[in-house]
């Protein structure tokens, strides 16, 4: 197997604080079962304006089997390695992109921006097995991430996307409600972003649409459509599931604090 997912896992594990230190504070407004446990199957909460409230601390859906030695604290989902794993035939790479992914995997992902503690970009923010917190306020949705203690703003005040923004890792995002779904449009990405650990590229011409729907109190579904004609033959869509982590909060996680893996990685 040319992939070394356990190495990735190892790197992510390095700087994480152990679960025992996680904050334990009851989340306000959470519906509870008679035994006091959060009722995660309760209906999604709504704001005064009637729209669903997406606020909460969210974790990835752990859909990847654990290694033989057991599950790790930071347990990566399938989409961390391959964002297109659920697509029949995989991602519709253009030839250069298919070649780049092959090369990046053969090189043991040495050029992954993640190894250099650079930002993950908005797609990997969702697939990184660290928590993120959504804070929904009037006119603005903020996503606070444990990873690098970075944030992302999604403007819901009706402003348009900037026409020719300075390219950035996180891009620029605006959102509007369609029924109970928040539809987020993003552009303004910089070249060199990886969408997964296999190195699926995102270029400056990429546009991403996210459809966020809180199915119930404990579950958030995120449909991600990537339209990047410089890297893919056609737009593609995948669905991610996030699970609410009740009664806790974010801790800071700094990759630069203790990154030990990169010097030890050997590529072909």
């Amino acid at each position, binding site marked *: 197997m040319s992939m070394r997912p356990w190495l990735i896992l190892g790197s992510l594990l390095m700087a994480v*604080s152990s679960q025992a*230190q996680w*904050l334990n*504070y009851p989340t*306000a407004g959470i519906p509870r079962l008679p035994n006091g446990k959060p009722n995660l199957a309760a209906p999604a909460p709504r704001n005064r304006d009637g729209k669903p409230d997406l606020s909460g601390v969210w974790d990835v859906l752990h859909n990847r089997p654990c290694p033989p030695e057991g599950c790790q604290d930071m347990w990566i989902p399938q989409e961390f390695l391959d964002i297109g794993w659920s697509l029949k035939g995989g991602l519709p790479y253009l030839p250069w992109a298919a070649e780049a992914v092959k090369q990046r995997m053969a090189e043991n992902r040495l050029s992954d921006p993640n190894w*250099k*503690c*650079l*930002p993950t970009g908005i797609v990997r923010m969702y697939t990184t097995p660290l928590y993120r917190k959504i*804070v929904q*306020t009037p006119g*603005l949705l*903020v996503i*606070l991430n444990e990873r*690098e*203690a*970075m*944030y992302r*703003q999604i403007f819901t005040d009706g*402003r348009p996307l*900037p026409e020719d923004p*300075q390219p*950035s*890792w*996180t891009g620029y995002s605006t959102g509007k409600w369609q029924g109970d779904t928040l539809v987020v449009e993003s552009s303004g990405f910089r070249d060199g972003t990886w969408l997964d650990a296999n190195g699926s590229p995102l270029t400056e011409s990429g546009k991403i649409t996210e459809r966020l729907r809180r199915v119930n109190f404990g579950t958030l579904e995120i449909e991600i459509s990537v339209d990047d004609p410089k890297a893919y033959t056609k737009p593609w869509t995948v669905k991610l599931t996030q699970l609410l982590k009740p009664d806790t*909060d*974010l*801790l*800071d996680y*700094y*990759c*630069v*604090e203790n990154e030990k893996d990169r010097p030890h990685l050997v590529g072909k």
Partner: protein
Amino acid sequence: MLARLILSSMLAAAVPASAQWFKLALPGTPRLPDGRPNLSAPTPRGPDGKPILDGVWQMNGKYLQNIAADMKPGDVPYQPWAQKLFNDRQDGHLGWTDPAAKCIPGMPKLDALPYPFKIIESPGMVMMLFEGFTTFRQIFTDGRELPKDPNPAWFGYSVGKWEGDDFVVETIGVRQETWLDNAGRPHSDALHLTERFQRRDFGHMDILLTIDDPKTYTKPWTVKEDVRLIPDTELLEYVCTENNKDYEHLVK
């Protein structure tokens, strides 16, 4: 001195040119007849009468370099070991030990970065989003107490409450490796910060910062930092790890 110069050049290295900043006509901004924001208009207030702190702000840059910039020499009440360490840090040879050199600024340096930050009030929590290092602070206003024995964190743990027109934020649990300023003032694990946010008018705010750290300073001391509103714009992305050239050149 060298350390200060190097750090300030590091901080300057990755900043985008101002020509690329956003120009937005943000609603809710009082304006002069010519359309420019009226920065001396009265402090905006919410339905509860409390000042609204929301906005994009920028602190006077001198406090990052020297948190005691407005104090007289000799007024910082160092414990002997802290005075010695501060003195040792003056020739720059310890600059590499400042976590900020590796892209982690700590508190209270984070507030003092010479880049804009944004305050967003939400129910139960006030967020501060920083352009510098693209990072954030959460200040809980839901009535919770400070944690008793928290896992030390780079920005610590913060709770806030209103006292009259002052938003008062208490912070503990800051990792002790961080420096209070680029000049190298140290702190210990006993650091307890109190910030009083005082919005004077639409365009101006003071932060009264009290440093209470009996292991490092013989008594609490307070500095007043001035902050100005940056109207009609938004934060940009700043990624320190993208182009940090200084660390390898710092003398170790």
